[in-house]
């Protein structure tokens, strides 16, 4: 049996793709938070990310493939796992021995995936349209205005905030869990779990703060 076809190989693949997405998420947050205190810096960074050939034609496709890979494998594993218990229990007290979040990664993952659909519709599709379909002239000043325009709608801000609650839950289990999957469970695990709790709160709350900040200061 090849590594990727085995149950442990798939654990590795889920963990590594998840960690890759965590790195991207951190980088995304680092750029977005600049929009709170400097429109110019946000524009500069966004322009670089949107026009650098390496980012556009190497990193962006890798990122999209990473997202597709992570959720496709996640759904396939969920189906396989469900089939491993063909007759269900009449009484099953999952809460007695495992946190809700660890038992419902597929739910939090599905919400995040739905959010990504909206997020792509909001930002990625218009960006692709601007650059490659309408081929409009380069404008390094447009990103901040586009951002605050998106957060004018309270409904959109609400959906974003709710989605980030599920992102927080997904990270809460997934981040430290991925280290266990790649075989790292040692004296650093306790510290890693503490860091995971902090990370799973700080990053999603930070994203919600950015959305709320622009929503409330837009008027």
């Amino acid at each position, binding site marked *: 049996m090849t590594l990727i076809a*085995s*149950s442990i190989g798939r654990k590795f693949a889920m963990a590594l793709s998840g960690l890759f997405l965590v790195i991207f998420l951190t980088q995304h947050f680092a750029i977005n938070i600049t929009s709170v205190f400097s429109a110019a810096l946000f524009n500069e960074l966004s322009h670089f990310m949107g026009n650098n050939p390496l980012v556009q034609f190497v990193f962006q496709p890798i990122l999209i493939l990473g997202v597709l890979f992570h959720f496709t494998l996640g759904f396939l594993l969920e189906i396989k796992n469900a*089939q*491993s218990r063909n*007759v269900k229990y009449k*009484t099953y*007290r999952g809460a007695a021995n495992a946190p809700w979040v660890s038992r419902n990664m597929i739910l939090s993952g599905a919400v995040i995936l739905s959010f990504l659909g909206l997020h792509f519709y909001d930002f990625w599709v218009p960006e692709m349209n601007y650059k490659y379909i309408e081929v409009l002239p380069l404008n390094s000043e447009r990103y901040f205005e586009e951002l605050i325009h998106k957060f004018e709608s309270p409904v959109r801000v609400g959906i974003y905030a709710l989605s980030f609650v599920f992102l927080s839950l997904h990270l809460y289990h997934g981040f430290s869990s991925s280290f266990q999957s*790649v075989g790292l469970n040692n004296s650093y695990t306790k510290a890693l779990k503490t860091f995971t709790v902090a990370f799973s709160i700080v990053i999603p709350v930070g994203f919600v703060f950015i959305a709320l900040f622009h929503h409330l200061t837009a008027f």
Partner: protein
Amino acid sequence: MKLTLKIWRQANAQAKGKMETYQLEEVSPDMSFLEMMDVLNEQLIEQGIDPVAFDHDCREGICGMCSMFINGEAHGPDRLVTTCQLHMRKFKDGDTITIEPFRAKAFPVIKDLTVDRSSFDRIQQAGGFVSVNTSGNTQDANAIPIDKHDADKAFDAATCIGCGACVATCKNASAMLFVSAKVSQYALLPQGKVEATDRVLNMVNQMDEEGFGNCTNTGACEVECPKGISLENIARMNREYLHASLKG
């Protein structure tokens, strides 16, 4: 104590089972759970009803035969005990107790609460052993110095009794805690290192072929394991497997 028992009854592997309800009176809080089941079976025999089939052997918590899923948990609500070591004092007078077999595709029901756990035997046979030269030149194991830390970890892993509570508890019916304990107890010792590569590859391969689910690190297995087998073993098995796969 008066109890209402809701028990899975299934005549054989092919039959369609269902939950049956029985009333039981005069249960002593000092009885073990299996003694309570014995009392129920005596009552059923007197009533001309087929007694409930369930696995049991040593009744001392070391053989791993008893395997009931009680009130939604493997081996019931107590921690670090098997069903035979669970006592009725953990329940209250008037309680309704639900008793089901360990459920997994790889643990098919034989009858009532008895399941076929021979999939564990096949995993063990795939690599859970150390080949020993029996020509008369075998080195005395006690003559091989082993780091105390490793010896303790190996012994902890070796306390796995293979009851299957990890599979029964896991929402994915994953057997990784069991397999990792068996891999770890040898991987940590010099005697086991000779066959380490083949062992982990073969045991994991057999585990996958048996139809167990995939581990998603919920940690439920560790909580419900009557021997307290640690998740560290799964991480160790993952490392061993990656290393063995790359080594070929």
